[in-house]
Protein backbone atom coordinates (compact mmCIF):
# COMPACT_ATOMS: atom_id res chain seq x y z
CA UNK A 1 0.00 0.00 0.00
CA UNK A 2 1.34 3.37 -0.76
CA UNK A 3 1.09 6.11 1.71
CA UNK A 4 0.52 9.32 -0.13
CA UNK A 5 2.84 12.00 1.01
CA UNK A 6 0.93 14.76 2.62
CA UNK A 7 1.33 18.44 2.14
CA UNK A 8 4.97 19.24 1.50
CA UNK A 9 6.62 21.02 4.32
CA UNK A 10 7.28 24.65 3.57
CA UNK A 11 9.95 25.63 1.10
CA UNK A 12 9.51 22.93 -1.38
CA UNK A 13 11.27 19.70 -2.01
CA UNK A 14 10.04 16.74 -0.07
CA UNK A 15 12.57 14.84 1.95
CA UNK A 16 13.47 11.48 0.53
CA UNK A 17 11.06 8.97 1.84
CA UNK A 18 11.30 5.27 2.05
CA UNK A 19 9.16 3.74 -0.60
CA UNK A 20 6.11 2.01 0.75
CA UNK A 21 4.77 -1.13 -0.69
CA UNK A 22 8.07 -2.93 -0.91
CA UNK A 23 6.72 -5.29 1.70
CA UNK A 24 4.16 -6.48 -0.80
CA UNK A 25 6.46 -9.22 -1.93
CA UNK A 26 5.83 -11.35 1.12
CA UNK A 27 2.52 -11.87 2.85
CA UNK A 28 3.48 -14.82 4.96
CA UNK A 29 2.39 -14.65 8.57
CA UNK A 30 5.69 -14.73 10.34
CA UNK A 31 5.75 -14.33 14.13
CA UNK A 32 7.02 -10.79 13.68
CA UNK A 33 4.15 -9.87 11.42
CA UNK A 34 1.69 -11.41 13.83
CA UNK A 35 3.23 -9.60 16.80
CA UNK A 36 3.22 -6.22 15.11
CA UNK A 37 -0.36 -6.52 13.94
CA UNK A 38 -1.59 -7.88 17.25
CA UNK A 39 -0.08 -4.86 18.95
CA UNK A 40 -1.81 -2.52 16.49
CA UNK A 41 -5.08 -4.36 17.00
CA UNK A 42 -4.86 -4.05 20.79
CA UNK A 43 -4.08 -0.34 20.56
CA UNK A 44 -6.94 0.22 18.14
CA UNK A 45 -9.28 -1.56 20.52
CA UNK A 46 -8.09 0.57 23.44
CA UNK A 47 -8.57 3.70 21.35
CA UNK A 48 -12.00 2.88 19.99
CA UNK A 49 -13.65 1.03 22.83
CA UNK A 50 -14.53 4.16 24.85
CA UNK A 51 -15.79 5.88 21.71
CA UNK A 52 -17.96 2.96 20.66
CA UNK A 53 -19.26 2.66 24.20
CA UNK A 54 -20.21 6.36 24.20
CA UNK A 55 -22.00 6.07 20.86
CA UNK A 56 -24.01 3.14 22.22
CA UNK A 57 -24.70 4.92 25.51
CA UNK A 58 -25.99 7.93 23.58
CA UNK A 59 -28.50 5.74 21.82
CA UNK A 60 -29.88 4.03 24.94
CA UNK A 61 -32.28 4.82 27.73
CA UNK A 62 -30.95 6.29 30.96
CA UNK A 63 -31.85 3.12 32.80
CA UNK A 64 -29.87 0.96 30.42
CA UNK A 65 -26.76 3.10 30.84
CA UNK A 66 -27.11 3.13 34.61
CA UNK A 67 -27.42 -0.62 34.88
CA UNK A 68 -24.52 -1.24 32.55
CA UNK A 69 -26.64 -2.56 29.70
CA UNK A 70 -24.89 -0.51 27.05
CA UNK A 71 -23.14 -2.87 24.69
CA UNK A 72 -26.19 -4.90 23.81
CA UNK A 73 -28.96 -4.66 21.25
CA UNK A 74 -31.71 -3.91 23.78
CA UNK A 75 -33.21 -0.70 25.15
CA UNK A 76 -32.43 1.60 22.27
CA UNK A 77 -34.09 4.96 22.37
CA UNK A 78 -32.37 6.89 19.63
CA UNK A 79 -35.26 9.06 18.52
CA UNK A 80 -36.32 9.84 22.06
CA UNK A 81 -32.78 10.79 23.02
CA UNK A 82 -32.34 13.01 19.98
CA UNK A 83 -35.63 14.74 20.70
CA UNK A 84 -34.64 15.24 24.33
CA UNK A 85 -31.22 16.55 23.29
CA UNK A 86 -32.70 19.25 21.10
CA UNK A 87 -35.60 20.15 23.35
CA UNK A 88 -34.53 20.06 27.00
CA UNK A 89 -34.46 23.48 28.66
CA UNK A 90 -35.81 25.11 25.51
CA UNK A 91 -33.12 23.72 23.28
CA UNK A 92 -30.16 24.91 25.30
CA UNK A 93 -27.93 22.23 23.79
CA UNK A 94 -28.38 23.69 20.31
CA UNK A 95 -27.45 27.02 21.77
CA UNK A 96 -24.25 25.57 23.28
CA UNK A 97 -23.38 23.98 19.99
CA UNK A 98 -23.85 27.26 18.12
CA UNK A 99 -21.84 29.06 20.78
CA UNK A 100 -18.98 26.61 20.25
CA UNK A 101 -19.22 27.18 16.52
CA UNK A 102 -19.11 30.92 17.13
CA UNK A 103 -16.14 30.80 19.52
CA UNK A 104 -14.14 28.34 17.44
CA UNK A 105 -15.25 29.61 14.03
CA UNK A 106 -14.74 33.32 14.62
CA UNK A 107 -11.82 32.81 17.01
CA UNK A 108 -9.90 30.60 14.61
CA UNK A 109 -11.04 32.29 11.41
CA UNK A 110 -9.96 35.74 12.53
CA UNK A 111 -7.16 34.50 14.79
CA UNK A 112 -5.42 32.60 11.99
CA UNK A 113 -5.65 35.63 9.74
CA UNK A 114 -4.03 37.77 12.42
CA UNK A 115 -1.28 35.16 12.77
CA UNK A 116 -0.66 34.98 9.03
CA UNK A 117 -0.41 38.76 8.75
CA UNK A 118 2.05 38.95 11.65
CA UNK A 119 4.09 35.93 10.54
CA UNK A 120 4.33 37.26 7.00
CA UNK A 121 5.50 40.63 8.30
CA UNK A 122 8.12 38.96 10.51
CA UNK A 123 9.37 37.01 7.52
CA UNK A 124 9.37 39.66 4.81
CA UNK A 125 10.43 42.85 6.53
CA UNK A 126 13.48 44.00 8.37
CA UNK A 127 13.30 46.71 10.98
CA UNK A 128 15.13 47.52 14.18
CA UNK A 129 14.03 45.47 17.15
CA UNK A 130 12.29 42.89 15.01
CA UNK A 131 13.86 39.86 16.63
CA UNK A 132 13.26 41.29 20.06
CA UNK A 133 9.61 41.61 19.16
CA UNK A 134 9.64 38.03 17.91
CA UNK A 135 11.13 37.03 21.24
CA UNK A 136 7.98 38.38 22.84
CA UNK A 137 5.93 36.09 20.62
CA UNK A 138 8.08 33.16 21.72
CA UNK A 139 7.49 34.10 25.32
CA UNK A 140 3.81 33.73 24.54
CA UNK A 141 4.50 30.22 23.25
CA UNK A 142 6.40 29.28 26.40
CA UNK A 143 3.93 30.60 28.96
CA UNK A 144 1.14 28.04 28.96
CA UNK A 145 -2.25 29.55 28.32
CA UNK A 146 -3.71 27.71 31.28
CA UNK A 147 -1.43 29.70 33.57
CA UNK A 148 -2.70 33.01 32.20
CA UNK A 149 -6.37 32.04 32.22
CA UNK A 150 -6.98 32.92 35.82
CA UNK A 151 -5.17 36.28 35.56
CA UNK A 152 -7.31 36.88 32.49
CA UNK A 153 -10.39 36.28 34.59
CA UNK A 154 -9.18 38.65 37.28
CA UNK A 155 -8.65 41.35 34.66
CA UNK A 156 -11.98 40.67 32.95
CA UNK A 157 -13.73 40.84 36.31
CA UNK A 158 -12.18 44.26 36.87
CA UNK A 159 -13.19 45.39 33.38
CA UNK A 160 -16.71 44.06 33.74
CA UNK A 161 -16.32 41.70 30.80
CA UNK A 162 -17.06 38.50 32.68
CA UNK A 163 -20.09 36.64 31.33
CA UNK A 164 -19.93 38.08 27.83
CA UNK A 165 -19.09 36.52 24.48
CA UNK A 166 -16.00 38.74 24.33
CA UNK A 167 -14.58 37.22 27.49
CA UNK A 168 -14.06 33.96 25.62
CA UNK A 169 -13.72 35.26 22.09
CA UNK A 170 -10.90 37.80 22.54
CA UNK A 171 -8.46 35.48 24.34
CA UNK A 172 -9.24 32.80 21.75
CA UNK A 173 -7.82 35.03 19.03
CA UNK A 174 -4.33 34.85 20.49
CA UNK A 175 -2.14 32.12 19.06
CA UNK A 176 1.59 32.93 19.33
CA UNK A 177 2.52 29.52 17.98
CA UNK A 178 0.45 30.32 14.91
CA UNK A 179 2.59 33.41 14.30
CA UNK A 180 5.68 31.25 14.40
CA UNK A 181 4.12 28.73 12.00
CA UNK A 182 3.03 31.54 9.70
CA UNK A 183 6.57 32.90 9.59
CA UNK A 184 7.85 29.48 8.56
CA UNK A 185 5.11 29.08 5.97
CA UNK A 186 5.79 32.54 4.60
CA UNK A 187 9.50 31.78 4.23
CA UNK A 188 8.62 28.62 2.35
CA UNK A 189 5.71 29.62 0.20
CA UNK A 190 6.11 33.29 -0.68
CA UNK A 191 9.18 33.91 -2.85
CA UNK A 192 10.83 37.25 -2.24
CA UNK A 193 11.17 37.68 -5.99
CA UNK A 194 7.41 37.90 -6.31
CA UNK A 195 7.34 40.80 -3.91
CA UNK A 196 10.23 42.47 -5.71
CA UNK A 197 8.31 42.20 -8.95
CA UNK A 198 5.27 43.66 -7.24
CA UNK A 199 7.32 46.59 -5.96
CA UNK A 200 8.67 47.29 -9.41
CA UNK A 201 5.09 47.37 -10.65
CA UNK A 202 4.43 49.99 -8.01
CA UNK A 203 2.10 47.98 -5.79
CA UNK A 204 1.77 49.17 -2.22
CA UNK A 205 3.11 46.89 0.53
CA UNK A 206 -0.32 46.19 1.98
CA UNK A 207 -1.83 45.48 -1.41
CA UNK A 208 0.97 42.97 -2.01
CA UNK A 209 0.10 41.15 1.20
CA UNK A 210 -3.54 40.93 0.22
CA UNK A 211 -3.06 40.13 -3.46
CA UNK A 212 0.19 38.14 -3.50
CA UNK A 213 1.09 36.92 -0.02
CA UNK A 214 -2.29 35.85 1.25
CA UNK A 215 -3.24 33.62 -1.71
CA UNK A 216 0.15 31.89 -1.52
CA UNK A 217 -0.32 31.32 2.21
CA UNK A 218 -3.75 29.78 1.84
CA UNK A 219 -2.70 26.32 2.95
CA UNK A 220 -0.67 27.74 5.82
CA UNK A 221 -3.72 29.70 6.88
CA UNK A 222 -5.88 26.58 6.75
CA UNK A 223 -3.39 24.62 8.84
CA UNK A 224 -3.21 27.27 11.56
CA UNK A 225 -7.00 27.66 11.47
CA UNK A 226 -7.48 23.94 11.89
CA UNK A 227 -5.32 23.67 14.99
CA UNK A 228 -6.69 26.82 16.51
CA UNK A 229 -10.25 25.67 15.81
CA UNK A 230 -9.70 22.38 17.60
CA UNK A 231 -7.94 24.08 20.52
CA UNK A 232 -10.86 26.47 21.01
CA UNK A 233 -13.51 23.80 20.45
CA UNK A 234 -11.83 21.57 23.02
CA UNK A 235 -11.16 24.43 25.42
CA UNK A 236 -12.81 24.33 28.80
CA UNK A 237 -10.87 26.20 31.47
CA UNK A 238 -11.35 29.66 29.95
CA UNK A 239 -15.10 29.24 29.54
CA UNK A 240 -15.38 27.73 33.01
CA UNK A 241 -13.86 30.75 34.72
CA UNK A 242 -15.42 33.40 32.48
CA UNK A 243 -19.02 32.26 32.14
CA UNK A 244 -21.83 31.62 34.56
CA UNK A 245 -24.71 32.37 32.21
CA UNK A 246 -25.44 29.05 30.60
CA UNK A 247 -26.76 30.72 27.47
CA UNK A 248 -23.16 31.64 26.68
CA UNK A 249 -21.64 28.20 27.39
CA UNK A 250 -19.71 26.33 24.75
CA UNK A 251 -20.71 22.71 24.38
CA UNK A 252 -17.85 21.28 26.48
CA UNK A 253 -18.75 23.42 29.49
CA UNK A 254 -22.45 22.77 29.00
CA UNK A 255 -21.99 19.02 29.08
CA UNK A 256 -19.72 19.28 32.11
CA UNK A 257 -22.26 21.33 34.06
CA UNK A 258 -25.10 19.09 32.98
CA UNK A 259 -23.18 16.00 34.06
CA UNK A 260 -22.40 17.61 37.42
CA UNK A 261 -26.09 18.34 37.93
CA UNK A 262 -27.05 14.68 37.40
CA UNK A 263 -25.97 13.78 40.93
CA UNK A 264 -28.60 16.09 42.39
CA UNK A 265 -31.21 16.14 39.63
CA UNK A 266 -31.35 12.44 38.89
CA UNK A 267 -30.41 10.56 35.74
CA UNK A 268 -33.22 11.75 33.46
CA UNK A 269 -30.78 13.78 31.38
CA UNK A 270 -28.04 11.14 31.32
CA UNK A 271 -28.76 10.27 27.66
CA UNK A 272 -28.33 13.95 26.85
CA UNK A 273 -24.86 13.89 28.40
CA UNK A 274 -23.92 10.82 26.35
CA UNK A 275 -25.49 11.79 23.05
CA UNK A 276 -24.39 15.37 23.59
CA UNK A 277 -20.80 14.18 23.96
CA UNK A 278 -21.01 12.25 20.71
CA UNK A 279 -22.46 15.22 18.85
CA UNK A 280 -19.80 17.49 20.37
CA UNK A 281 -17.01 15.29 19.04
CA UNK A 282 -18.42 14.90 15.53
CA UNK A 283 -17.55 18.28 13.96
CA UNK A 284 -13.85 17.97 14.70
CA UNK A 285 -13.69 14.41 13.47
CA UNK A 286 -15.43 15.34 10.23
CA UNK A 287 -13.21 18.39 9.73
CA UNK A 288 -9.98 16.57 10.49
CA UNK A 289 -10.77 13.59 8.34
CA UNK A 290 -11.71 15.75 5.37
CA UNK A 291 -8.79 18.12 5.76
CA UNK A 292 -6.12 15.54 6.56
CA UNK A 293 -3.43 16.99 4.41
CA UNK A 294 -3.53 20.27 6.29
CA UNK A 295 -3.11 19.00 9.82
CA UNK A 296 -0.45 16.58 8.72
CA UNK A 297 1.27 19.59 7.20
CA UNK A 298 0.96 21.29 10.57
CA UNK A 299 2.60 18.40 12.33
CA UNK A 300 5.45 18.35 9.87
CA UNK A 301 5.73 22.09 9.50
CA UNK A 302 8.20 24.27 11.20
CA UNK A 303 10.69 22.13 9.48
CA UNK A 304 12.70 24.34 7.23
CA UNK A 305 16.19 23.54 8.24
Amino acid at each position, binding site marked *: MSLSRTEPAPSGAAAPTRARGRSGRRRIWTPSRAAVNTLLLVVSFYTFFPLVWTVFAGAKTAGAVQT*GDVLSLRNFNIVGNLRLLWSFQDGIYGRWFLNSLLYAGVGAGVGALICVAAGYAFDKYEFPGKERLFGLVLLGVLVPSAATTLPLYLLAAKAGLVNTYFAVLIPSLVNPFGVYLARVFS*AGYVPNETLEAGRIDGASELAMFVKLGLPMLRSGYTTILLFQFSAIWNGFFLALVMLTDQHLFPVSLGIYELNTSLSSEGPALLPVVMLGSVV*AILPLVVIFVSLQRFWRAGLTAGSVK
Partner: protein
Amino acid sequence: MYRYGTETTVRLINRRASAVGAAPVTAGVTVRRGTGAALLLMAPFFAVFALAVLAPIGYAIYLSQFAQRASGLGFGGLHSVWVGLDNYRRVLTDSTYTSSYLHVLLYAVVAVPLVLGLSVVIALALDSAYALGRRAAQLGLFVPHLVPGVIAALIWAYLYTPQVSPVVKALSSWHVHIEPLGPGFTYPSLINVVLWESLGYNIVIYYASLQAIPREMAEAAVVDGAGEWRTAWHIKLPLIRSAVALTAIFSAIGAMQLFAEPLLLSTAGSTGISQDWTPNLYAYTAAFTRNNDYGAAAAASIILAALAAGLSYVVTRFGKPWRQA
Protein backbone atom coordinates in the same frame (compact mmCIF):
# COMPACT_ATOMS: atom_id res chain seq x y z
CA MET B 1 16.11 18.22 5.45
CA TYR B 2 12.77 18.29 7.12
CA ARG B 3 11.90 17.82 10.69
CA TYR B 4 8.66 17.56 12.44
CA GLY B 5 5.94 19.34 14.22
CA THR B 6 6.92 19.38 17.79
CA GLU B 7 10.42 20.29 16.98
CA THR B 8 9.16 23.65 16.06
CA THR B 9 9.47 25.10 19.51
CA VAL B 10 13.10 24.19 19.67
CA ARG B 11 13.57 25.62 16.27
CA LEU B 12 12.01 28.79 17.45
CA ILE B 13 14.33 29.01 20.31
CA ASN B 14 17.28 28.24 18.09
CA ARG B 15 16.15 30.81 15.66
CA ARG B 16 15.82 33.29 18.42
CA ALA B 17 19.31 32.47 19.57
CA SER B 18 20.77 32.76 16.12
CA ALA B 19 18.83 35.91 15.48
CA VAL B 20 20.98 37.74 17.96
CA GLY B 21 24.00 37.29 15.76
CA ALA B 22 23.05 35.69 12.53
CA ALA B 23 20.82 36.99 9.83
CA PRO B 24 17.39 35.46 9.39
CA VAL B 25 16.66 33.05 6.58
CA THR B 26 15.37 35.48 4.07
CA ALA B 27 17.93 38.23 4.54
CA GLY B 28 19.46 39.57 1.42
CA VAL B 29 16.44 40.32 -0.65
CA THR B 30 14.28 42.22 1.76
CA VAL B 31 15.62 45.54 2.78
CA ARG B 32 14.40 48.16 5.15
CA ARG B 33 11.35 48.96 3.18
CA GLY B 34 7.84 49.24 4.31
CA THR B 35 8.50 49.16 8.03
CA GLY B 36 5.21 50.95 8.38
CA ALA B 37 3.43 48.19 6.51
CA ALA B 38 5.14 45.58 8.67
CA LEU B 39 4.00 47.22 11.85
CA LEU B 40 0.52 47.59 10.48
CA LEU B 41 0.38 43.88 9.64
CA MET B 42 1.61 42.98 13.11
CA ALA B 43 -0.63 45.41 14.92
CA PRO B 44 -3.72 43.18 15.21
CA PHE B 45 -1.72 40.32 16.70
CA PHE B 46 0.11 42.46 19.22
CA ALA B 47 -3.10 44.25 20.13
CA VAL B 48 -4.85 41.04 21.17
CA PHE B 49 -1.61 39.66 22.59
CA ALA B 50 -1.24 42.70 24.82
CA LEU B 51 -4.87 42.54 25.80
CA ALA B 52 -5.14 38.83 26.50
CA VAL B 53 -1.62 37.84 27.61
CA LEU B 54 0.52 40.77 28.73
CA ALA B 55 -2.15 42.79 30.49
CA PRO B 56 -3.50 39.84 32.51
CA ILE B 57 0.00 38.87 33.60
CA GLY B 58 0.77 42.44 34.56
CA TYR B 59 -2.51 42.78 36.41
CA ALA B 60 -1.95 39.48 38.21
CA ILE B 61 1.51 40.63 39.32
CA TYR B 62 -0.09 43.80 40.64
CA LEU B 63 -2.99 41.98 42.26
CA SER B 64 -0.70 39.44 43.88
CA GLN B 65 0.68 42.19 46.10
CA PHE B 66 -2.64 43.00 47.72
CA ALA B 67 -4.79 41.21 50.23
CA GLN B 68 -8.31 41.72 51.45
CA ARG B 69 -8.37 42.75 55.07
CA ALA B 70 -11.33 43.48 57.29
CA SER B 71 -11.19 47.09 58.36
CA GLY B 72 -11.17 48.26 61.94
CA LEU B 73 -13.54 46.25 64.04
CA GLY B 74 -14.72 44.26 61.10
CA PHE B 75 -17.73 46.45 60.35
CA GLY B 76 -16.54 48.48 57.42
CA GLY B 77 -16.30 45.47 55.13
CA LEU B 78 -13.20 44.37 53.29
CA HIS B 79 -10.63 46.62 51.76
CA SER B 80 -7.42 46.08 49.85
CA VAL B 81 -4.11 46.37 51.63
CA TRP B 82 -0.71 46.32 50.00
CA VAL B 83 1.14 43.34 51.42
CA GLY B 84 4.18 43.13 49.15
CA LEU B 85 5.27 39.55 48.66
CA ASP B 86 3.18 38.23 51.50
CA ASN B 87 0.78 36.37 49.17
CA TYR B 88 3.73 34.54 47.63
CA ARG B 89 5.00 33.62 51.07
CA ARG B 90 1.52 32.49 52.06
CA VAL B 91 1.07 30.37 48.94
CA LEU B 92 4.54 28.87 49.00
CA THR B 93 4.24 27.89 52.65
CA ASP B 94 0.79 26.42 52.10
CA SER B 95 1.37 22.70 52.07
CA THR B 96 -1.64 22.25 49.78
CA TYR B 97 0.07 24.32 47.11
CA THR B 98 3.43 22.64 47.39
CA SER B 99 1.89 19.19 47.42
CA SER B 100 -0.04 20.06 44.26
CA TYR B 101 3.35 20.27 42.55
CA LEU B 102 4.31 16.99 44.12
CA HIS B 103 1.19 15.43 42.62
CA VAL B 104 1.94 16.60 39.10
CA LEU B 105 5.59 15.63 39.52
CA LEU B 106 4.71 12.11 40.59
CA TYR B 107 2.14 11.94 37.84
CA ALA B 108 4.64 13.14 35.22
CA VAL B 109 7.37 10.73 36.34
CA VAL B 110 5.07 7.83 35.53
CA ALA B 111 2.88 9.22 32.76
CA VAL B 112 5.47 10.84 30.50
CA PRO B 113 7.74 7.79 30.04
CA LEU B 114 4.69 5.54 29.75
CA VAL B 115 2.93 7.60 27.10
CA LEU B 116 6.08 8.30 25.10
CA GLY B 117 7.45 4.77 25.39
CA LEU B 118 4.23 3.18 24.18
CA SER B 119 3.91 5.76 21.40
CA VAL B 120 7.43 5.04 20.17
CA VAL B 121 6.88 1.29 20.16
CA ILE B 122 3.60 1.62 18.29
CA ALA B 123 5.00 4.13 15.80
CA LEU B 124 7.91 1.78 15.08
CA ALA B 125 5.48 -1.09 14.64
CA LEU B 126 3.40 1.03 12.30
CA ASP B 127 6.49 1.94 10.31
CA SER B 128 7.75 -1.62 10.02
CA ALA B 129 7.20 -3.60 6.87
CA TYR B 130 4.87 -5.90 8.78
CA ALA B 131 2.11 -3.44 9.59
CA LEU B 132 -1.23 -3.63 7.82
CA GLY B 133 -3.65 -0.75 7.39
CA ARG B 134 -1.13 1.98 8.19
CA ARG B 135 -3.15 4.85 6.86
CA ALA B 136 -6.35 3.88 8.62
CA ALA B 137 -4.50 3.22 11.86
CA GLN B 138 -2.78 6.56 11.75
CA LEU B 139 -6.03 8.40 11.19
CA GLY B 140 -8.03 6.36 13.69
CA LEU B 141 -5.51 6.62 16.50
CA PHE B 142 -5.59 10.41 16.17
CA VAL B 143 -9.31 10.61 16.98
CA PRO B 144 -9.02 10.77 20.82
CA HIS B 145 -6.95 13.92 20.40
CA LEU B 146 -10.07 15.50 18.89
CA VAL B 147 -12.17 14.74 21.96
CA PRO B 148 -12.35 17.63 24.44
CA GLY B 149 -10.34 16.70 27.54
CA VAL B 150 -13.28 17.18 29.83
CA ILE B 151 -15.45 14.87 27.72
CA ALA B 152 -12.70 12.25 27.58
CA ALA B 153 -12.50 12.34 31.38
CA LEU B 154 -16.28 12.15 31.59
CA ILE B 155 -16.45 9.06 29.37
CA TRP B 156 -13.75 7.34 31.38
CA ALA B 157 -15.41 8.30 34.65
CA TYR B 158 -18.44 6.30 33.49
CA LEU B 159 -16.21 3.47 32.37
CA TYR B 160 -14.71 3.51 35.87
CA THR B 161 -18.08 3.29 37.62
CA PRO B 162 -18.63 -0.32 38.75
CA GLN B 163 -22.39 -0.64 38.02
CA VAL B 164 -22.06 1.05 34.63
CA SER B 165 -18.75 -0.14 33.27
CA PRO B 166 -18.43 -3.24 31.11
CA VAL B 167 -14.69 -3.22 31.81
CA VAL B 168 -14.97 -3.41 35.58
CA LYS B 169 -17.66 -6.06 35.20
CA ALA B 170 -15.66 -8.16 32.80
CA LEU B 171 -12.61 -7.99 35.02
CA SER B 172 -14.53 -8.97 38.12
CA SER B 173 -16.04 -11.93 36.34
CA TRP B 174 -12.44 -13.03 35.84
CA HIS B 175 -11.90 -12.42 39.55
CA VAL B 176 -9.87 -9.30 39.02
CA HIS B 177 -11.41 -6.69 41.26
CA ILE B 178 -10.48 -3.13 40.54
CA GLU B 179 -11.90 0.06 41.95
CA PRO B 180 -10.84 2.80 39.52
CA LEU B 181 -12.72 5.48 41.42
CA GLY B 182 -11.32 4.42 44.77
CA PRO B 183 -8.47 6.10 46.62
CA GLY B 184 -5.98 3.42 45.62
CA PHE B 185 -6.37 4.16 41.93
CA THR B 186 -5.85 7.92 41.88
CA TYR B 187 -2.81 7.93 39.63
CA PRO B 188 -3.64 4.95 37.39
CA SER B 189 -7.13 6.32 36.69
CA LEU B 190 -5.85 9.78 35.85
CA ILE B 191 -2.90 8.53 33.82
CA ASN B 192 -5.14 6.24 31.81
CA VAL B 193 -7.34 9.15 30.72
CA VAL B 194 -4.34 11.17 29.60
CA LEU B 195 -2.74 8.14 27.96
CA TRP B 196 -5.90 7.57 25.96
CA GLU B 197 -6.00 11.21 24.86
CA SER B 198 -2.37 11.60 23.89
CA LEU B 199 -1.20 8.22 22.62
CA GLY B 200 -2.40 8.68 19.05
CA TYR B 201 -1.19 12.25 18.84
CA ASN B 202 2.36 11.25 19.74
CA ILE B 203 2.22 8.23 17.45
CA VAL B 204 1.29 10.40 14.49
CA ILE B 205 4.19 12.76 15.21
CA TYR B 206 6.72 9.94 15.56
CA TYR B 207 5.37 8.18 12.52
CA ALA B 208 5.81 11.37 10.49
CA SER B 209 9.39 11.56 11.77
CA LEU B 210 10.02 7.97 10.80
CA GLN B 211 8.62 8.59 7.35
CA ALA B 212 11.19 11.27 6.69
CA ILE B 213 14.19 9.12 7.51
CA PRO B 214 16.12 8.87 4.25
CA ARG B 215 15.36 5.63 2.48
CA GLU B 216 19.04 4.78 1.99
CA MET B 217 19.65 4.54 5.71
CA ALA B 218 17.13 1.84 6.37
CA GLU B 219 18.05 0.06 3.17
CA ALA B 220 21.73 0.09 4.03
CA ALA B 221 20.91 -1.57 7.31
CA VAL B 222 18.93 -4.25 5.53
CA VAL B 223 21.81 -4.81 3.07
CA ASP B 224 24.08 -5.21 6.06
CA GLY B 225 21.84 -8.00 7.20
CA ALA B 226 19.91 -6.26 9.96
CA GLY B 227 16.34 -7.45 10.30
CA GLU B 228 13.28 -5.25 10.85
CA TRP B 229 13.64 -5.35 14.62
CA ARG B 230 17.30 -4.40 14.66
CA THR B 231 16.75 -1.72 12.05
CA ALA B 232 13.97 -0.27 14.16
CA TRP B 233 16.00 -0.32 17.34
CA HIS B 234 19.45 0.69 16.12
CA ILE B 235 18.72 2.87 13.08
CA LYS B 236 15.25 4.34 13.29
CA LEU B 237 14.94 4.96 17.01
CA PRO B 238 18.10 7.10 17.33
CA LEU B 239 16.96 9.14 14.35
CA ILE B 240 13.68 10.19 15.95
CA ARG B 241 15.35 10.99 19.26
CA SER B 242 14.81 14.71 18.85
CA ALA B 243 11.09 14.32 18.19
CA VAL B 244 10.80 12.17 21.30
CA ALA B 245 12.77 14.63 23.44
CA LEU B 246 10.50 17.43 22.37
CA THR B 247 7.26 15.64 22.97
CA ALA B 248 8.68 14.82 26.40
CA ILE B 249 9.00 18.52 27.17
CA PHE B 250 5.50 19.19 25.92
CA SER B 251 4.11 16.35 27.99
CA ALA B 252 5.91 17.60 31.09
CA ILE B 253 4.54 21.10 30.61
CA GLY B 254 1.13 19.61 29.93
CA ALA B 255 1.40 17.80 33.26
CA MET B 256 2.01 21.06 35.10
CA GLN B 257 -1.17 22.47 33.59
CA LEU B 258 -3.44 19.53 34.37
CA PHE B 259 -6.91 20.80 35.11
CA ALA B 260 -10.00 19.43 33.38
CA GLU B 261 -9.26 15.74 33.88
CA PRO B 262 -8.54 15.83 37.63
CA LEU B 263 -11.41 18.30 38.13
CA LEU B 264 -13.84 15.84 36.61
CA LEU B 265 -12.41 12.83 38.42
CA SER B 266 -12.48 14.71 41.71
CA THR B 267 -16.27 14.79 41.55
CA ALA B 268 -16.71 11.30 40.15
CA GLY B 269 -16.01 9.27 43.24
CA SER B 270 -13.63 8.96 46.12
CA THR B 271 -10.58 9.14 43.90
CA GLY B 272 -8.50 11.01 46.42
CA ILE B 273 -8.27 13.95 44.04
CA SER B 274 -9.07 17.04 46.06
CA GLN B 275 -10.32 20.43 44.90
CA ASP B 276 -6.77 21.74 44.83
CA TRP B 277 -4.89 18.71 43.63
CA THR B 278 -2.91 20.40 40.84
CA PRO B 279 -1.43 23.93 40.75
CA ASN B 280 -4.12 25.08 38.34
CA LEU B 281 -6.89 23.60 40.46
CA TYR B 282 -5.38 25.32 43.48
CA ALA B 283 -5.46 28.72 41.81
CA TYR B 284 -8.99 28.09 40.55
CA THR B 285 -10.22 27.07 43.97
CA ALA B 286 -8.51 30.03 45.62
CA ALA B 287 -10.25 32.44 43.27
CA PHE B 288 -13.70 30.91 43.23
CA THR B 289 -14.41 28.95 46.34
CA ARG B 290 -12.00 30.10 49.02
CA ASN B 291 -13.57 33.52 49.74
CA ASN B 292 -12.41 34.90 46.40
CA ASP B 293 -8.82 35.05 47.58
CA TYR B 294 -7.67 36.82 44.42
CA GLY B 295 -4.30 37.73 45.88
CA ALA B 296 -3.41 34.09 46.49
CA ALA B 297 -4.91 33.02 43.15
CA ALA B 298 -2.84 35.63 41.32
CA ALA B 299 0.35 34.67 43.17
CA ALA B 300 -0.25 30.97 42.49
CA SER B 301 -0.84 31.65 38.77
CA ILE B 302 2.26 33.81 38.45
CA ILE B 303 4.44 31.17 40.09
CA LEU B 304 3.04 28.50 37.78
CA ALA B 305 3.49 30.62 34.66
CA ALA B 306 7.05 31.51 35.61
CA LEU B 307 7.93 27.90 36.39
CA ALA B 308 6.46 26.55 33.15
CA ALA B 309 8.06 29.25 31.02
CA GLY B 310 11.38 28.88 32.83
CA LEU B 311 11.37 25.12 32.48
CA SER B 312 10.62 25.11 28.77
CA TYR B 313 13.09 27.90 28.14
CA VAL B 314 15.95 26.24 29.98
CA VAL B 315 15.29 22.85 28.45
CA THR B 316 14.96 24.08 24.88
CA ARG B 317 17.82 26.53 25.17
CA PHE B 318 20.41 24.42 26.89
CA GLY B 319 19.13 20.91 26.37
CA LYS B 320 21.47 18.77 24.38
CA PRO B 321 20.03 15.73 22.68
CA TRP B 322 18.06 17.50 20.00
CA ARG B 323 20.39 20.32 19.18
CA GLN B 324 22.45 18.48 16.66
CA ALA B 325 19.65 16.31 15.35
